[in-house]
């Protein structure tokens, strides 16, 4: 390689490194802001977490004792700083042999459930991942497939039918679909279990059986969105000059659509899939609530109801982090898939 080429390559690498560093810095800043906002919002809640640890009957002395133990008697900014330092070096509550230890990185300690937040989230993550990934596979196959089928045969019965279903899917709330699904498949025809989760490692068949309804319900709604998206994009792409040129050159229709058409549709689908999946991985609150699945979403809902601030902050941060990662991955894909952008 010549000297100029080498210098150009080094310059590009340095530029990429700088961009990467900037991204990481901005991601960290975003997470910081999210955590600060969460703290602010939840501290304003008219509930006293120390009350939960007070016992029944609760005396003012015991309440004060509980507050001191949970470090709630400190000022709010001080508590936030404690939280930040805990991320790095872990935290301790109380003194002596009964002291509670939360090892680094300590995203908080849930006094209600007696465990560090990180452990609680780790327990629930497999459930949420199972739900999200399973539904994603289903909706991609169904949605993109239906969208492509509709786009290659525009204005036929197939197209109209698919798009009608899609519009209906977009207009239906998940909770309604879920509850009706439970009623139909769980109680009227006893083929599927209506609630609960069985780990994949324990019994794959039961795992799938318990997740079929949630997958279908989530996939139905998302597939509708993706079908519309895919059809719209593909229709536009198929009008474009280079497609007409390919057809004119005599390429087979399937090749035209498959290679040239889909490649251009891939980008929008990926850019939408990223945040969608990122959001679902943070917990599909309503779906988990309806199907009583012990995922991150129901943990979060529980935590908000019980004013379990450390848990709320922890899950919110995880959710924000997943969205950031998803966006970063999407941008990366943009760079790889669309030569016009990466240039």
């Amino acid at each position: 390689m010549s000297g100029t080429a080498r210098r150009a390559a080094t310059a590009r690498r340095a530029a990429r490194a700088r961009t990467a560093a900037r991204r990481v810095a901005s991601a960290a800043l975003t997470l910081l802001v999210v955590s600060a906002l969460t703290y602010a919002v939840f501290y304003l809640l008219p509930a006293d977490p120390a009350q939960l640890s007070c016992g029944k009957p609760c005396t003012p002395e015991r309440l004060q004792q509980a507050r001191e133990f949970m470090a709630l008697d400190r000022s709010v900014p001080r508590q936030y700083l404690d939280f930040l330092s805990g991320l790095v070096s872990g935290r301790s509550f109380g003194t002596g042999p009964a002291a509670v230890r939360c090892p680094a990185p300590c995203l908080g300690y849930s006094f209600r459930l007696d465990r560090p937040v990180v452990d609680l989230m780790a327990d629930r993550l497999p459930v949420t991942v199972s739900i999200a990934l399973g539904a994603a596979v289903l909706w991609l196959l169904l949605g993109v497939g239906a969208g492509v089928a509709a786009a290659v045969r525009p204005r036929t019965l197939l197209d109209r039918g698919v798009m009608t279903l899609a519009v209906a899917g977009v207009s239906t709330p998940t909770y309604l679909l879920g509850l009706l699904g439970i009623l139909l498949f769980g109680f009227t025809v006893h083929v599927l279990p209506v609630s609960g989760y069985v780990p994949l490692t324990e019994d794959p068949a039961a795992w799938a059986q318990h997740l079929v309804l949630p997958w279908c319900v989530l996939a139905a709604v998302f597939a509708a969105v993706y079908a519309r998206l895919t059809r719209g994009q593909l229709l536009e792409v198929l009008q474009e000059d280079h497609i007409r040129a390919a057809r004119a050159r005599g390429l087979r229709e399937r090749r035209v659509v498959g290679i040239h058409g889909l490649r251009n549709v891939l980008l929008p689908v990926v850019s939408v899939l990223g945040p969608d999946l990122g959001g679902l991985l943070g917990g599909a609150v309503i779906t988990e609530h309806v199907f009583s699945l012990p995922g991150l979403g129901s943990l979060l809902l529980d935590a908000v109801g019980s004013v379990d601030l450390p848990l709320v902050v922890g899950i919110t941060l995880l959710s924000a982090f997943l969205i950031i990662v998803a966006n970063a991955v999407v941008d990366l894909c943009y760079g790889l898939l669309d030569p016009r952008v990466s240039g």
Partner: protein
Amino acid sequence: MKRHPLRATAAALTGLVLAACGTSSSGGAPASSSTAAARGGSLFVLTTSSSVTLDPAKSQNLAITTLGLIYRRLTTWDIAPGRPPTVVPDLATDTGTASDGGRTWTYHLKDGLQYADGTPITAADVRYGVERSFAAELSGGLSYHKTLLAGGTAYKGPYTGQDLPAIETPDARTIVFHLATAYGDWPWIVSMPAFAPVPRAKDTSPTSYATHPAASGPYQVDSYHQGSALVLTRNPHWDARTDPVRTGGPDKITFQLGQDRSVVAQRLIADSGDDRSAFGASFVPPAQLAQVSRDAGAKQRLVTSDPGALAYLAINTRRPALADVRVRQAIEYGVDKHAYQVASGGELAGGLATTLITPGIPGRVAYDLYPEEPSGDVAKARQLLAAAGTPALSLSLLVDSESNSAAQAQAIQQALQRVGITVTIRQLDDEAWTAAATGAAGDYDLTLSSWQPDFPSANGNLQPLFATSEIGGGGYNLARYSRPEVDALIARATGETDHAAAQALWAQADRRILQDAPVVPLIYTRNSFLHGSKVADFFVAGFPAYPDYLRVSLRR
């Protein structure tokens, strides 16, 4: 911590007249085909709680539910349908010997008691269990004993290196308690979870003791996944001959956590697969009660309790608008108790209430200070309001977000609208409601609540709700009611060791308090539960209005 649904203030109200069939005779039929409990099988308990507090120091469980399966205490409750509850010896040989005018209580442990690992249960273990409940790290459980034991308010727990001198263990099988004042109901207090024995050697890490606690009851903890399931398996060293109230029927008990109330009820109605060996730990909601009334098979498996808790509307007596007793009496007459009953699910939700002490509590005297039609007395209410000089009022009503609360709150709102009081409903989540209602600020005019005493004595009905010491700071005196003569009356009744005399004093206090109209008694709630077709010995008595987990078994 997510409180066990047995917490009184969270009692959701249900009810349905299974009119023609009268299936659920009060208390429910213990439908078992044999007198001896059948052994074996895997029982499922479906519950809406997403977590179970396994540490006895932190638990607020009733003695006959979850933790009663794992831990034995000095005494326990003997519950049977159709008769009042009694306290019976559990680990101890009797319910306690009182001396020194009721200020000292002595217990002797039975012979041959062992934990699940075979080690013997000693009095020192019981002492240690009580002491560790005082530690700040383990607070949150039932705390009646913490103020009753001498020096309890100052004691900080055994982890500071100090012991509690009020508890003595002269030998391995004797334990003596020294109380700060005479307390006739102490035998009920030692049936609470904090009095479960905890071996000091196993309490190396107090906050994680509960993951594998030392089991003294018929079952031990096999696994616990928060939000998912709690699995209990047999304790091989539990001796049924020493245990009068537990039958240890099923081989394995699985608690399915985090379920939806309505779905649980529908699963039990459908009664298929594993659900045949299951019962619901949560009340059956009105919608499903309506469904049950149309399903002959399900009707057989519905069990309704006797009236248990008191559902009431608390009036914040400290607010200037509500300071005048005539305004509060106007609210008494204005409220439509019948509409509230319907909103709670109908007649089987419970009968209309007129007293503060609930039916079934020994010594209760029935009376009606504010006689009116079930739908209230609008004319009289308006009259009283006019006399007080406030013909129109605007009040806020605080409710928690249990499933029926919206309908119930709206019933109150509608009723008070008729007499000229505009009510704004403010709905808060369970814990937020607790903080707002029991906190120091007291920023509400009205609030709906229900209360079941933690032990069946009139003391439990009146003192926590109407004593001045229970205002704010987590106390349940939601009406913020304070009268020195009432406090004196309560103190006299508490210290009285002669039961008949005490009961007379409590009845007197009941009537005296209601004269000031700090609360409007609404209904005495009855709770309904469903069980699967293979579940036997399932019943719900009057107190507590929850199923007795300790006797449930499975039919083969």
